[in-house]
């Protein structure tokens, strides 16, 4: 089932894992080799497997753009080494901090005791300079995950790596060979400066705004009236339909397994093989649209959990999501894995080839699309990009329409009817709140919407509707309580929050151990947010309110309202946040506390 290549790799790294594991007791060992190589990047990223791991966080000099910068790395590797665990094993990881700042490692999507989750202030104290922390827990699940720092901006500075957990039982699909494809974004700028710039000028990185030129071309192509009403709509809201990403290719270099597009990372295959690609989006701020021209991809797992296989041409991967896809290369010796950023300002790319050095053409970036009124949760058919132009301006005035009293109070069962397009109610804390610049009026789940820029592009694009968990609802209970939370923000201020309240001002969401709750998210903003709950699964419901898809990160495009079930089976304090790093840092975060 598995290739010789991988077996060989496993054997070699297994030996290394042992050696380092053995050295865990004596701190004297590791530094000898690490000091010698201090500050130089080890390439390519290695795979460490076994049950004992020694991870050293340090600063390493990297150069992705022609300029040298200091990255924060694990074992001088960017991405950090791929860790290979086995379901059912108890793993021990000693993480040492050789940097001059506090650090941490969070195992994204992994079910574990709260004090192993790696969030400073909630799980543990963080790892001080010169200190180390011993993570030890039993691996309950299998699949593709990742790990990253949960301290300050270290994730943007390079501290992330792939996590692959081999299942205890055979997976429901077969493959001959596998590759991790870890996508990320790199900036030479200090990420703190990036945030500061956005606070001063929120469209700093957007050089694709509408101009006088696009005004004239729109008038020519769509007519004066349509163009005018469109401009009045957006201008009236003080929003830009070009706001697809806060941080763009202006500063980012997009990486595939730590390699820029010119470096041509290459995954080898032999003809006739079925290849499993483990896609991970380890970006701080970038959504990618991924395809392999000339090849279909069969998605077999999402966020590490098996799904009914679905064959697509392209998928959008939200920040922090993972997708396992199987491809069967035939007819070509080389294929391009093309991952364009959602705002079309750049791409990560690499190759699948029968040998190193081969490469196929890299496609052109798709044309940029604009957000529509449906994207803004102002109703209309989300899958029809032209629908927006039919919405009369009055319907989109942000001050209009909210006066209509909401429907009768919802009981906990009616509350999950997210497919309804009735007028959306909003929490009191959003009222008159200077941190809330928009509110969705008629948000819907839109599970079948490929998303802005991917609609009607002639390719079969993956949607959440296509992704169906391979298993029945593992809990089976109806949620007893429903929490509705709104994703809120103010674009011009670059302020982000839940319900208009930033993390530092918000009370924890308290759940009782063992209960099952429903969380309904309403995206009131015009950005898309990947929402991640630590420690527990997020089981997305379909339009009828039934269990649909198990995830650890739920993508919330603008103007959507999506519901998921959470089984509170993990005692402790857990982080719950938007996984766009700068949104989290700006306040789009909550603590979820599971108590007895």
């Amino acid at each position, binding site marked *: 089932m598995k290739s010789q290549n991988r077996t060989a790799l496993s054997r070699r790294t297994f030996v290394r894992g042992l050696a380092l594991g053995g050295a865990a007791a004596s701190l004297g060992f590791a530094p000898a080799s690490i000091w010698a190589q201090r500050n130089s990047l080890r390439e390519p990223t290695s795979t460490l497997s076994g049950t004992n791991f020694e991870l050293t966080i340090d600063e390493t000099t990297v150069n992705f753009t022609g300029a040298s910068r200091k990255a924060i790395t694990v074992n001088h590797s960017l991405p950090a080494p791929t860790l290979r665990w086995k379901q059912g094993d108890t793993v021990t990881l000693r993480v040492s901090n050789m940097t001059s700042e506090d650090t941490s490692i969070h195992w994204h999507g992994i079910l574990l*005791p*709260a004090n*192993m989750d790696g969030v*400073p202030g*909630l*799980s*543990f104290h963080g790892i001080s300079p010169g200190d180390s922390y011993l993570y030890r827990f039993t691996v309950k699940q299998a699949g593709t995950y990742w790990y990253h720092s949960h301290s*300050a901006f270290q994730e943007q500075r390079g501290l992330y790596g792939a996590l692959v957990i081999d299942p205890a039982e055979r997976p429901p699909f077969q493959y001959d060979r596998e590759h991790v494809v870890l996508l990320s974004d790199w900036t030479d700028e200090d990420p703190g400066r990036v945030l500061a710039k956005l606070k*001063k*000028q929120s469209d700093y990185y957007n*050089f694709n*705004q509408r*101009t*006088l*030129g696009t005004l004239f071309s729109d008038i020519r192509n769509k007519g004066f009236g349509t163009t005018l009403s469109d401009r009045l709509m957006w201008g*009236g*809201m*003080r929003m830009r339909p070009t706001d697809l990403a806060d941080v763009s290719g202006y500063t980012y270099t997009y990486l595939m397994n730590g390699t820029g597009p010119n470096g041509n990372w290459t995954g080898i295959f032999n003809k006739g093989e079925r290849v499993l690609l483990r896609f991970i989006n380890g970006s701080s701020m970038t959504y990618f649209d991924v395809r392999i021209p000339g090849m279909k991809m069969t998605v077999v797992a999402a966020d590490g959990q098996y799904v009914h296989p679905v064959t697509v041409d392209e998928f959008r991967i939200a920040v922090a999501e993972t997708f396992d896809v199987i491809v069967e290369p035939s007819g070509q010796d080389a294929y391009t894995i093309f991952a364009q950023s959602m705002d079309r300002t750049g791409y990560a790319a690499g190759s699948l080839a029968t040998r190193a050095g081969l490469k196929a053409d890299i496609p052109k970036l798709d044309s940029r699309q604009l957000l529509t009124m449906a994207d803004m949760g102002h109703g209309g058919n989300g899958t029809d990009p032209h629908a927006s132009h039919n919405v009369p301006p009055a319907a989109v005035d942000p*001050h209009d329409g909210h*006066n209509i*009293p*909401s429907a009768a109070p*919802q*009981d*906990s069962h009616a*509350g999950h009817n997210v497919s309804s397009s009735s007028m959306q109610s*909003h*929490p009191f804390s*959003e*009222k*008159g*709140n*200077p*941190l809330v610049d928009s509110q969705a009026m008629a948000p819907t789940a839109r599970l079948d919407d490929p998303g802005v820029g991917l609609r009607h592009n002639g390719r079969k694009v993956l949607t959440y509707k296509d992704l169906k968990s391979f298993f029945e*609802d*593992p809990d*089976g*209970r109806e949620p*007893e*309580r*429903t*929490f*509705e939370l709104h994703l809120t923000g103010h674009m*011009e*201020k670059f*302020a982000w929050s839940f319900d208009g309240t*930033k*993390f*530092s001002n918000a009370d924890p969401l308290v759940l009782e*151990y*063992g*209960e099952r709750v429903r969380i309904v998210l309403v995206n009131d903003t015009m950005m898309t947010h990947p929402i991640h709950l630590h420690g527990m699964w997020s089981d997305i419901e379909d339009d009828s309110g039934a269990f649909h898809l198990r995830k650890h990160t739920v993508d919330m495009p603008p103007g959507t309202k999506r519901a998921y079930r959470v089984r509170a*089976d993990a*005692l*402790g304090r857990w982080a719950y946040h938007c996984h766009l790093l700068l949104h989290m*840092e*700006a306040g789009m*975060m909550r*603590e979820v506390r599971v108590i*007895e």
Partner: protein
Amino acid sequence: MLRARLRLFLLMLLAVCATDALAQEVAIPSPVPPQEQQGKIQATQQPVTPIPPLTEEDRAAAFPGLGGHPAHDKKVFSFVLFDQLEWRTGGETETVNWDMTGWIGGDVHRLWFRTEGETDEKRLHEGEAQLLYGRAFSRWWDFVAGVRQDIRPDPARSWAAIGIQGLAPHFFEVRATAYVGASWRTQARFEAEYEMLITNRLILQPRVEFNLSGKSDPERSIGSGLTSAEEGLRLRYEFRREFAPYVGISWNQKFGGTADFARAEGEATRATRFTVGIRAWF
């Protein structure tokens, strides 16, 4: 004609702003606060996968003594913008003018400062600075209050300042400030500017400013009512967002009693000047 249009436009803008500032976005409170939506149905259902019973080990692992995740969402940021730093020529004078604004603070509470003035190689003609506390009170509008100190023209004057500023529909930046000084002198100033993107880096910025005075201040050659207007068009190129040289044109006009004072002193009541400058921020 262009000026007349700019002026008409300003008046319309002010009307729009006034209605916008008053309009409140309406939040329909959720019918029942989330915590009370429980309607706790006694769980007759049992989970398919049993909930593991808790052990002392679980409890110990769950709540280590910790102070909570360090939040970074209250960080203080700052912004300093030289909106105009320019050389002006036309008529008899050549001057250097500046108009600078900035803030330090968070998303809602900020300390603002503004300064503007004009100098030639010999002396400072006009110069003032303001220090204001600003609070965002609605989606797009800040309330500001503080002090203004005029250094020139002589004699120097001090003022208490109160106003609003914000982003009007269609991305017009607007400031309206009223000033009260000694002897119950009053002034008011309306400013508005817009950024028209010709390309994503070549940007045309029309700007208008109107000054009013409650009563005549002969010591400073200011009449009552509408005293002066300044309108400008500046075309800049953003090599970086932070750094943009520009060329432009600026019209100044004095009205009413202020114009009379100017005429009596042999000064022009209106001037059209060309300008070259740099817009920069950090």
